[in-house]
Structure formats: C-alpha cells, structure tokens
C-alpha cells in the first residue's frame, strides 16, 4: 500500500486537520465527535442540511460544506458509517431553529446511525427530516436487498437542496425537494481497479489486468458483474442504457414524522426516464481516473442521451464522489425541472464545488 498518509489510525483526523487549515474561511472542523461545519453556522433562519458517511469519498461530504450546500458533514472512518453522536452534535451546532435535514445514503449502516441520530436530535427539541438517497441502478430490486445504494445522485442532491435551504425553503419543503430529486436521479458505476482501505492495507478485491467490474458501489465492494475490459464507448453506452432504460423502481423508506414523533413508512416509485426529459449529466471519477478519460465517457454519454431524446442541460465532470484511489467512473443522470435547474445554478461556495460567487 502506497499512500500519502502517516499512521493508519490518524488518516481521517489528519485529513480533516488539513481541510480545516486549508479552508478556514469556509468551514471549521470539530473533533471528537468529528464533524465539518460551516464557518458561519448556524445560519439564522435557514434550514440546516447535514450529510455524512464513511470517509474515502472526498470531496464528498466534507468538501461540500459551505455557502449554498451543506451546513455540516459527518465523516466516519474510511468506508465506515459515522456514529450517531457525530450527527447529533453536528445538528446541535448548526441548527438555527429552522430544523435539520439529514441526507442519508442508503447503506444499512448509514441508515441506522442517522436514524438513531435523528431520534436523539428530536428528543433535544430539534425538528428533523431524514431523507434517503437510493439511486444505484446496479441494485435491481428492493424486495430481496437493502435497496438501492446511494451514489452519484447524492452530490447533485446536496447541491440542489443546499441551494433550497439557502433560498429559505422550510424544513418540509427541503425534505420534499430532497425526496423528489433523489427520485429523479439514477446512477451506475464501474471500476478498472480496486482500492485499498488504509486500515486493511491490501486491495479490497482483485481485478485481472484485462477485467473490469461493473455495477460497483462506492465502498470498494465488488459489483454486479465482472467483464472483460472494453472501450470507453462500450462502457459509456452500457452504463447509460442501464440508467436510461431502467424501469420504474419502487421501495418503502422510513422517514421521520415530527408531529407524531416517530418513524413512518413511505412507499415511493421512481418513474423511468423518457424522451423529452431534460437532465443534469454527471460523469464522476472513482478517484484514480483522470478527468481526461471522463471526457471520453461524456462524449459517448451525450450521444446516447441524444439518441434517446434526452437533453443534457447541465453537466458535472470530475472526481466528486470517489472510492479512494480506485480507477473507474460512474454516470448519474438527474431529470431536472425548472425549479431544480434554478437551484442547481444558484451560487455555491465550498472547497469541492464553487460557482456564482
């Protein structure tokens, strides 16, 4: 294992220290429990958006803390969900009284820890919403699995809902928007190489010199299927079609009811894409793939979308939700209506994403 790290046990803390020292104008880092939060938090009158998850996906989530995006991010150990005390303390630190929205990627660990945190925060008098992101079309059904994983759409959701909070949306409006944006987004990922969790010291899985792994998540877990290595065009087309041809997806999610003070089940159905849709296209590097190669993927993706009558109206290309140094990419398409586009275009100022300011 060759990495720019010191002792394995210090990796997350020292990276957070680096972030704190580099971006003191935008954010602060609280240690023990660990969370990254806006330098100007709590922001008066605004709903606080909090996300979090295992480390190793940088810039997500800590790099998205700042004006117009997240108010706080809770980083776990590498590829390990954070613990409820992190989210609970972060919520107390950034809640302005307008409530807190937790954006939670759908992994059992994340879900359970965020749920526990939501209960703790609510018990403390903070109004909470807990919305799951589950956009990975590599997971086909929700009946026999823990449901689709939260992947690329997370980045887009955090930007869009962050802008909504900045614009003064209420907690419930933020939650409704968050749920809707998640339902509009679908993603698919692939890996050319594995990656090495520092604490493990060796690659999570082995991949032959002429193989690739299709349908991976973001935790270095093996994916849906292993295939012989192929061209950028074939890879882009395969992933794009998995997304564009994905049928309706339904599942039951658990959300918090502030009035009842308890969890409620919601049955949700994501409609498939159709000709005429406008989308935000996001081509993401898994960390080790340089942006140049992403352009080859985007090139073909744009052609496939055009063939399907789907219009790309915005795009994001680069390493935004990564799996350490893994080589590979993911594609996310997000159906965008006028409200979503307006929020996408709104100013954002974070270490990882910045425009309009």
């Amino acid at each position: 294992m060759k990495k720019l790290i010191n002792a394995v046990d210090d990796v997350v803390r020292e990276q957070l220290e680096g972030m704190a020292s580099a971006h003191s104008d935008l954010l602060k880092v609280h240690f023990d429990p660990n969370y990254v939060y806006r330098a100007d938090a709590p922001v008066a009158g605004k709903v606080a958006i909090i996300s979090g998850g295992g480390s190793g996906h940088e810039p997500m989530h800590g790099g998205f803390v700042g004006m117009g995006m997240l108010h706080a991010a809770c980083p776990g150990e590498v590829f390990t969900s954070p613990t409820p005390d992190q989210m609970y303390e972060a919520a107390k630190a950034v809640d302005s009284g307008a409530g807190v929205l937790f954006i939670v990627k759908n992994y059992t660990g994340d879900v359970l820890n965020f749920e526990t945190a939501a209960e703790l925060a609510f018990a403390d008098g903070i109004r909470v919403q807990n919305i799951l992101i589950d956009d990975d079309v590599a997971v086909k059904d929700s009946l026999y699995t823990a449901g689709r994983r939260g992947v690329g759409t997370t980045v887009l959701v955090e930007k869009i809902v962050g802008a909504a909070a900045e614009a003064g949306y209420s907690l419930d409006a933020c939650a409704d928007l968050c749920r809707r944006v998640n339902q509009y987004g679908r993603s698919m990922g692939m890996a050319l190489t594995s990656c090495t969790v520092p604490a493990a010291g060796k690659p999570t899985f082995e991949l032959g010199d002429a193989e690739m792994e299709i349908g991976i998540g973001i935790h270095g877990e093996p994916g849906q299927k292993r295939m012989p290595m192929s061209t950028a065009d074939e890879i882009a087309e395969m992933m794009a079609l998995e997304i564009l041809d994905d049928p309706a997806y339904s599942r039951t999610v658990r959300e918090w009811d502030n009035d009842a003070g308890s969890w409620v089940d919601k049955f949700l159905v994501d409609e498939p894409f159709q000709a005429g849709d406008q989308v935000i296209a996001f081509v993401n590097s898994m960390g080790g793939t340089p942006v140049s190669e992403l352009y080859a993927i985007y090139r073909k993706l744009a052609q496939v979308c055009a063939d399907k009558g789907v219009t790309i109206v915005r795009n994001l290309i680069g390493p935004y939700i990564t799996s350490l140094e893994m080589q590979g990419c993911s594609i996310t398409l997000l159906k965008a209506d006028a409200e979503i586009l307006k929020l996408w275009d709104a100013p954002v100022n974070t270490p990882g994403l910045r425009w309009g300011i």
Partner: protein
Amino acid sequence: MSVTRDQIVQWLENLAAVLSENKEYLTQLDSAIGDADHGINMTRGFNKVMEKLPGVADKDIGNILKTTGMTLISSVGGASGPLYGTFFMRSGMAVGAKETLNREDLYELLKAGVDGIVQRGRPVLADKTMYDAWAPALEALRSALDAGMETLPALSQAVAAAETGMKNTIPLQARKGRASYLGERSIGHQDPGATSSYLMLKSLLDTLQPA
C-alpha cells in the same frame, strides 16, 4: 439463581475479551459477504465499553447496560453499532434500577434488547442477520423457562439454539445489510453478525456458569 450486578459487569468484560479473540474471525466472515470490518467494529466498540465500565460498575444494572449501549452507538458505526447499541439501551431500560435479576428479568433483558434490534433494523427470520441467532435463542429460552427450568440450563438451551441459528445462516441468501447486494453470492457463508450475537449469548452463559 439470580444474576448480580457484578456478574453483568463480568459478562461485559468477558465479552470484550471474547470479541477481541475473535476479531480476525469475525472480520474474515465479513470479508466474504461484507466489508471486512465486523471484528474491527466490535472490538473498537467493546474496548470503549471497557474504558467506560469502571465509571459505572457500581451503578444499577440498567445504568450499566445503557452506558454500554450509548458507548457502542457512539463508537462502532456500521450496521452493527446502532443495532447492538440499541440492544443494550433497550435491555437497560427494561431492567431499570434493579441490582439483581431473576430468570424472568433476564428473559426481559434479552427480549427487550432483541426487540430493539428488530425495531432498528427490521430484520425478519432468514434475512441472514444477527436476528437469525437471537430469534431461536429467545424462543428456546422462553420454552425452557415455561417448562420450569432454572436459569443456567435454560440459558444453555438458548445458546444451543443461537448456535444452530447462526449455522443456519450459511445456506441463506442475504436480504438485509451489505451482504444483500451480493445476491446469490452471499449463499454459503456464515453471517458475521449472527456469529457475534451467538458469542454474546455464549459468554453470558460462560460467565454465569461456575467453571
């Protein structure tokens, strides 16, 4: 026989030792169908519990168990953190200020803990989770107590049922947690959480049983 506060403390200490001995084993099980951290997670959590325990070892059993639960919740992470954390929180709430437990109290302790797991994780039988060890164990314990058995033999039956439940996870296809993403590839491997749950119950029995 009634279970004392000191025995509960002893149980937690033994459990910490057992989990630490089985760290590699649990992690290895998790590497087959998960993300290779279950042993690491559990050890990290119970090491923290060992740090906290001296501070509450003279409090009531409810307090001890709730502290254990809070500590696990804030140090384990992953799926097992909130699940085991909730287990101890709920079991602590169930026994309350008691300083000794009779056999029904012990059942209530475990039952409340398992109910917590179910509420949090919503497992059903044969999902290939820790619940597959707990459900038959609780059932066996209930039957044994209903049949008038003493604490130790009843608990023995529960441990045996947990072991069978744990082994029965091997042929199952996972439907909850990380392992569920593997689909059929999850078949043929023993669930790490069911294994740590079995170890938990087993070390309770070992603690109470005169050597």
